Every structure is written in structure tokens, then in C-alpha cells.
């Protein structure tokens, strides 16, 4: 994989990001009526916030200058001032909430990838048997369930009835911890249900994709050749089939990021998990447009960057792409 390939991909991503900036800018301009009027109508907006936002929007200046002000502010890390958080810079508000979201999503993805791939491989191998049918049904049904609904059901079962896990939040309020381990275990207890809910959805998807990819791979000639060489079933699948089936998985993980984000918003809302998803929900509820705009930008750019990384990783791992000159 040479520099030119990498460079091309990076440039394309940058162009997309710029397009997102432009899109984001205009998106929040299509509000019917004068933006300032709408801001004024917002009961949560303090005078300070309105002044700052007026400055940020540059509403007294011509359109193209407003756009440049917008871009300039972005590069300075200024995403405006939040209404909901009474004058706090949007960037700061968001910054405080990134870690919890990353923690939850990260744990869920790792769990989902491991379990999903495992189930997918078994399904494809024992195609048509009971295991396969059960896992297929599981995938279909888990996809049909709204993520938030799964969360509610889990809360009912595990928190309310069985009392194993807490119902909400990231940490038990008011508790002081003796050390890192105690703090971590409290967080983990709170994290269990959100992560489980998120994983459920993803596991279904990953298992399904892994299964269908592997089924396709198993029809290839080189698999027949591997069998002809006298190897056992599990060797052929492990050493020949799965490595080929793993490549599309990387693409799928990237494609599923939209799903992950949608899930995060719902799950954080249900479990009051202090992350970006919950923040977006609150911002919508109180029509805090600067905050909303900032979050939207962050999320979209993150997805683009993640896609870029997945692309490059795929290019690195696939020998056919790696040696392209």
C-alpha cells in the first residue's frame, strides 16, 4: 500500500469533511424565520448567549462573510455557546462527554466483534443445522427490535426485578472511592447493561455478515483445494476460510457505525449514561441549536475519520491491495 493510495484516501476524506462543514452550516440556516428571532424565543437563552451567538453567526454581516466567520471559528475550536448550559462554550460541554460514550461504544464493539464472529463462523460451518437456525433467528429478531426497547426490557429484567445492575448513570451518586479499582468496578457495574444492549444489536449484524461471507468463501475453489490436500474441516475453516472472510468484516464494522451512533443516542437516553448521545437528546429537547450543531459536526466527522481508518486498515491487510503499485 503505497503513499499515493493513502494520500488519495485522506484527501477524499478531507473533501467530504469540508462538504459536511458546508452542509452543517446551511442546515442550521434553513430554520424558518430569522435565526435571531428563534434564539430570542428560546426561554433558556441568556442575554450573554444570544450576544455571543449573534457574533458567531455574524448576523449583521453579508452571507459569505458569515460563512467564513463560521469556518474561522471552527478552526479556533469555537463551536459557539450553549443555551442549555447557560453560556458554557459548546466545545467544552461536548468535551466533557466524549469519554463515557467512547468507553461504552468501545466495550460494546469489542464484545460484539468477538461474539459475533464466533457465532457467524459456527453458523456458516454448521449451515442448516439447529445452531444455524437459532443464530439466524436471533440476528433477525434482534435487528427488528428498537434498541431503546431492548434497553427498557433489560432494565426491567435486570435492574428492577433481579436487581443485579443499576438502572442509570455511570457511577453511583455521592459515593467516594478508596482507589481506582473500586471506582472502576462501580463504573463497570453501571456500564454492563448499556454495553449489553448495544452489543446485542451489533452481534446480530456481525454474525449475519460473517455467516454469509463465510458461506460464500466456502464455495471458492481454493477451499476445495484445501480439502483435497487432506486437511480436516476445522483446519480448512480456520486457516483458509476465515482469513478471507475477515476482510469484508472490517468494511462492515465501518458501515455499521451509523447503527452504533443511533444505538448510542437511544441507550444513553434510557440509561442516563453521561455521553454525547444523551447530550444530543437533551439538546434537542431544549432546542439548543449551537450545541446541536456542534454535536452533529463532531459525530459526522468522527464517522468519516473512522471510515478512513477502516479503509486504510483494509488496504494494509489485503495483500492484493497492499502491493498495488
Amino acid at each position, binding site marked *: 500500500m503505497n503513499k499515493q493510495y493513502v494520500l488519495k484516501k485522506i484527501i477524499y476524506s478531507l473533501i467530504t469533511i469540508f462538504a459536511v462543514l458546508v452542509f452543517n452550516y446551511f442546515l442550521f440556516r434553513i430554520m424558518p424565520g430569522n435565526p435571531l428571532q428563534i434564539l430570542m424565543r428560546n426561554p433558556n437563552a441568556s442575554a450573554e448567549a444570544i450576544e455571543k451567538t449573534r457574533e458567531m453567526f455574524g448576523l449583521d454581516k453579508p452571507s459569505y462573510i458569515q460563512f467564513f466567520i463560521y469556518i474561522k471559528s471552527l478552526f479556533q475550536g469555537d463551536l459557539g455557546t450553549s443555551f442549555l448550559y447557560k453560556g458554557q462554550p459548546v466545545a467544552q460541554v461536548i468535551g466533557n462527554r466524549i469519554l463515557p460514550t467512547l468507553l461504552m461504544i468501545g466495550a460494546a464493539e469489542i464484545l460484539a466483534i468477538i461474539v459475533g464472529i464466533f457465532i457467524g463462523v459456527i453458523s456458516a460451518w454448521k449451515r442448516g443445522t439447529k445452531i444455524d437456525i437459532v443464530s439466524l433467528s436471533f440476528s433477525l429478531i434482534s435487528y427488528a427490535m428498537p434498541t431503546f426497547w431492548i434497553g427498557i426490557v433489560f432494565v426491567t429484567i435486570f435492574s428492577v426485578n433481579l436487581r443485579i445492575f443499576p438502572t442509570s448513570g455511570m457511577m453511583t451518586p455521592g459515593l467516594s472511592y478508596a482507589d481506582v479499582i473500586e471506582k472502576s468496578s462501580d463504573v463497570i457495574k453501571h456500564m454492563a447493561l448499556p454495553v449489553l444492549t448495544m452489543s446485542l444489536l451489533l452481534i446480530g449484524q456481525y454474525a449475519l455478515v460473517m455467516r454469509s461471507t463465510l458461506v460464500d468463501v466456502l464455495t*471458492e*475453489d*481454493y477451499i*476445495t*483445494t*484445501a*480439502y*483435497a*490436500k*487432506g*486437511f*480436516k474441516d476445522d483446519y480448512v475453516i480456520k*486457516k*483458509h476460510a476465515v*482469513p*478471507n472472510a475477515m*476482510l469484508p468484516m472490517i468494511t462492515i464494522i465501518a458501515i455499521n457505525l451509523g447503527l452504533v451512533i443511533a444505538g448510542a443516542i437511544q441507550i444513553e437516553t434510557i440509561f442516563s449514561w453521561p455521553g454525547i448521545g444523551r447530550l444530543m437528546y437533551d439538546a434537542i429537547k431544549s432546542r439548543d441549536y449551537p450545541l446541536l450543531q456542534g454535536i452533529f459536526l463532531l459525530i459526522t466527522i468522527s464517522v468519516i475519520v473512522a471510515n478512513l481508518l477502516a479503509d486504510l486498515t483494509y488496504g494494509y491487510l*489485503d*495483500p*492484493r491491495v497492499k*502491493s498495488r503499485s
Partner: protein
Amino acid sequence: MELLKIDNLKTYFKTSKGIVRAVDGVSFSIERGQAVGLVGESGCGKTTTALSIVNLLPENGKITEGSILLDGKDLTKLSKDRVRKQRWKNVSIVFQSAMNALNPVMKVGDQVIEAIMYHNHLTYEEARKKTKELFDLVEIDKNRIDNYPHEFSGGMKQRVMIAMALACDPKLIIGDEPTTALDVIVQAQILNLLNKIKEELNTGLLIITHDLSILGEVCDEIVIMYAGKIVEKGRTEQIYEEHLHPYTYKLFKSFPDIQGERILEEALMGRAPNLSDHLPGCRFNPRCSFASDKCRIEEPKLKEASPGHYCACHYGGVWNG
């Protein structure tokens, strides 16, 4: 003793449309150092015969009758595990030069080495050394054993496949359309290589093909199949000299002779029969210009018309004017 003796092999497939009798009573044999060509249209049962020998049939396929004797041992009577363990060591197979017979994410050398290590119980270094020797034999630069399949051309990939097939010094190599999809010059190189293997290593070869032009180059004997049955078999010279079966005649005539007369021969009309249907009489009769009532009722048996030259036709040798 013959190296390979197939006797009345019947391989059937269970499908949603009924039982497909892909191979329906096939018998022939191969000696050491001999190359036998198995010829016929697509779907006549040649690949199924090959897969039956190495027992790599798909799930719905089964050998229902007959025997496959390799050096006297009946392969059809072995347990699944025993069959698996002796694969590649006794019989190896080179698939159609389809681009996909080599694992794209694995180095070619490793694909040969894994076979050697598994069957011959050598260390990685020893297996690597042997692989390099094999690459020499098939005339590929031995420094390329760490390349990936996509870095090779079609012809070179086929050589790699042949090197791989030779890895465990097999007694018999089956080549399923080994030169299809290769251009003529490369074809010639591969055929030379096959001859070399046949003569120097005394390996038996079963060459499956629908391309008649390569038969004369490599094969000592030819077996012609149609709709799951053998219609003619004999030594290459015999078959080239005299086509006893109407099908053989049509088959050879559809390959124009560069030095022959410039006449456009009548094409063979129609299609091969559906092998799940009941097919009374001679299976070729719907397309045979010489078919008589007898052909439609009674199935012709394979008879020896002259020493070593067999034909399954009621009018074998006598139908053409």
C-alpha cells in the same frame, strides 16, 4: 497391476428435481507413467468422476455402486478419515486454471509447504527446501515462494498448482481442465511439463478436458464420455485414426483440421439430456443422425471393436459410409 482401476462406477446426486445420475457405470484404468484423457462436453460426468476418485463430492452426491482401486486398494470402502488422510499423498488434483484455486491471502510457498508438512511430517525449513525444488521442477523462480497468488500470471499460477500437486510425490495426478483459460503458448508449456512429470516421475495422469487439441500431446489413452456413460475408449492413435462412435466423430469434426479440406461440417445440434430423466436406449440417439429404432429402445453396451478399442454403439464402426 494397474495404478488406478475404476470398475462400474456410479455416482448419483440427490436434487430437488430428482436423482441425477451424473456417472452411470463408468470403467477404465490407468497404468503407472500413463496419461489418460477423459473427454466430453460440460455436464457429461468427467469432473464428477474425478471428484469421486478423491471423494470430494458435494453433500448431495454419493458413490452408489462400483469400485475405485488404487494400487489394488478400494477407495470406496475406506472410512472417511482414512480417505482424508491419504488425500494428496496418493492422488492429488490440479483444478481448472480458474483464478481462484489458490488462497489469495496466503503466500504461494506456504500453500505448498502446509501440504508437505502435514503429510510428510517435515519441519518448516525442510518443507521450504522441498518447495523450492518443486518450483525448480516446474520452472518457476524459486525466490517467488513468498509471493501472493495475484502476483502471478495465469500460466504461472497453473505451474504453482502443479508444483503443489507434486508436493507429496503422488502416484496419480488428476488435471481438471488444466489448460483451459490459458493462451496457446502457455498451454504448450504446461503440456510439456505434464509430459515431463509423466516420464521422469512415472506419475499416472488423468487429464480431464473438453479440448481435443491437447489430447494428442499428452495422453496415451482416451476415454470419451457422454451423459454419464463411456461411449468410446482406446489408445490415442486408435481413436484419432478411426472414430467408432458417432459422437466421437462429431466431436473431432468440430475441431477443424488446419491441414484438412476447407469444408464446413454439420454442427452437432441439440443439447445433452437431463440426467435425472429416464433415458431409454442409447443416450445419444436424439442427436444422432444415424439413430434407428433399436437405438431408441436398447442401450448399447461397451464392446471391444478391435484390440484395446471399445465402443458403445449398435453400429460401431459400421455407421459411416
